[in-house]
């Protein structure tokens, strides 16, 4: 199994940039705790598996760019999005 660096790295970077912009608004009645992000990651894992090795890659049986993007979003939220 060989993981291609390009889609993984740049998917993570784009997701990270977007994740840094997620901020919980204290004035809002709707807040998203850590558990909601866990659910989103699980759904994203299922979606990546359903999408398959996109686009025409054979490294993993799932869309590695999609998975890297959601990991990047969560990482960006945890590190900067407070």
């Amino acid at each position, binding site marked *: 199994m060989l993981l291609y660096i390009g889609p993984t790295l*740049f*998917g993570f970077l784009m997701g990270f940039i977007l994740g840094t912009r997620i901020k919980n608004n204290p*004035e*809002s009645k*709707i807040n998203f705790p850590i558990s909601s992000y866990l659910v989103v990651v699980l759904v994203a894992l299922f979606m990546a598996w359903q999408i398959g090795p*996109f*686009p025409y890659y054979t490294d993993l049986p799932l869309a590695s*760019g*999609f998975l890297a*993007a959601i990991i990047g979003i969560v990482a960006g939220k945890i590190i900067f999005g407070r």
Partner: protein
Amino acid sequence: MSTILKIFVFPASLLIMCLGILTILGGHITPGGGFQGGAMIAGGFIFCAVVYGLKENPLNFSHSFMAAMESIGALTYIFIGLAGLVFSGFFLYNLGVDLNNLVPAFIQNIFDYPDPIHAGIIPYLNLMVGLKVLVGLSAVVIAFMQFNHVRENDDSDQDA
């Protein structure tokens, strides 16, 4: 907006954004690319902005963030083009692929995109276009929503 929408839309917009990123990443070999993926990411943001409004939106695209992303996208695109001009004599020459054998191997390795297709600078250009488009379309919607807010305030002042 209803509470059900407010609970559903933010997680859904995260997944839409991931699909947009995937579209950008596959732009050099599949339908899609920077504009389409950027529009999908902006669609995720707009989804949130419409449901939560600008004040309560969990995705906070500030003016400085949008200015930085727009500038990074445009400048990196130009610099990649200028690198082609400097090393090969042609603006936006694909240094990573080097079909005409104009550049040394180490320059080709620098601009090579690390995946099995080896598309050179095309995926990088897609990424930069994606950044510009996601910010541009989001900025249009933010501006429209702020205009609407100002107009509503003016109307309420006139009524009073």
